């Protein structure tokens, strides 16, 4: 999707498009990043429920990873994960 730019301001700061929050990638705010361990994950989806940014990627009812485009690195998933399958690691970038 093309990013929308205000050429003409709409009344009340309205944006004449929907779903515009997806262009705002909040991943750059991260100073720590979550690392998900597929081996120890019980697929309880508690991380998915608790994540404030919807940054737990789920496919066909199963966690498949972290969406680093939007994950702000808050660490809630680490705190909430019962089998400790998510651990926060230093640095914003998942590659180190």
């Amino acid at each position, binding site marked *: 999707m093309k990013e929308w730019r205000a050429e003409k301001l709409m009344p*009340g700061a309205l944006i*004449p498009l929907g*779903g515009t929050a997806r262009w705002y990638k909040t991943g750059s705010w991260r100073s720590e990043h979550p690392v998900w361990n597929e081996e120890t994950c019980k697929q309880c989806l508690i991380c998915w429920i608790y994540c404030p940014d919807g940054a737990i990627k789920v496919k066909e009812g199963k966690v498949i990873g972290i969406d680093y485009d939007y994950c702000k690195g808050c660490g809630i998933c680490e705190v909430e994960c019962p089998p400790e399958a998510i651990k926060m690691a230093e640095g914003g970038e998942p590659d180190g």
Partner: protein
Amino acid sequence: MAKITGKIVAITGNAAVAQGMRQINPDVVAAYPITPQTDIAEEFATFVADGLVDTEYIAVESEHSAMSACLGAAAAGARVMTATSSQGLALMWEILYIASGMRFPIVMTNVNRCLSAPINIHCDHSDSMGARDSGWIQIYSESAQEAYDNIIQAVRIGEDEKVRLPVMVNMDGFIVSHSIERVELLEDESVKNFVGEYKPSFSLLDVEHPVTFGPFDGLGGFYFEHKLAQIEAMERSREVILRIGREFGALSGREYGFFEKYRLDDAEVAVIVLNSAAGTSKHTVDMMRREGHPVGVLKLRIFRPFPTRELCEALRHLRAVAVLDRATSPGTTGPLFGEVKAALYDLGKRPLVVNFIYGLGGREFKPEHIRCAFEALLEISKKGKVEKPLDYLGLKEVEVIS
């Protein structure tokens, strides 16, 4: 155009507003009851229960929620109305700015009541005056008839595509809201035709054309420009208010402008008032005119936008003007006084101006009080100078421990 009259009834100001709302038949009303507005919320809820309107009535848990629900409904494209008073309006505060900032033409009746403390349920204008900078158009009503006429016009003014701003219609708590008066109601059909169908420019329910309401607009954005757009909309509302006032006059025989002049053009001194005090002032002017005093009244109807230019024209010939404020701003003068005085500054030859505070917490305002103001004005006019720029009308003589 033929004047269409409906029924003449004896009803309270609150009942008149509720009848107007019934005839407007808004899509959504979200309101929370508060004295002295309660009857509006209650009577309108009865109309909903009796199936006399198609309105979705949202019973909320506070005024903050009431105005928030109004916002949501307006974003969905609904014609929205509500009503409140005093502490209720205060609790709506932050949402008032959001309603105007998002350019939602919500119409709200505010039944003027003072703010605590001390706790008191009676009339003054502290509530609406405190909201004067919130970006709402503010209309004031002398009587039950005017409150009714004003809410019908408010719908058209707010929804006009040049305006798109919320409108607050004020009337005096108890004095008008609970007094039974003679009110001419229009026919249901003529109100329906007058307000027409609301066509929102955007609606969250229009899934074919998705939109984003209320986005973040920070440092790199356009907050300032949006505020300018809001200021310009308020400026454009001037012409719309006058046009709708004329149209309403053609419909009802009661035409409205920015203000009403009463025996003003040949007066030497005059008072400026809002709401019901205008009636008592006119009555006093008649009495004093019979005694040969050149006195008059200017009743301001539109406070926002403030009709600076027109007000100057109407007042420039006077020798002295008293601005009567039913509100205070501790540390400075009354709010209406400040604005009138600022407006007059640009006139080369201008009347002398004084401020009287009256009627706080519902303190009664009688002809003798207005007479007192006029006598002070006649003295100022004679001497050509103001000795006491701020004074109070109707205070009790009592020792106050500071």
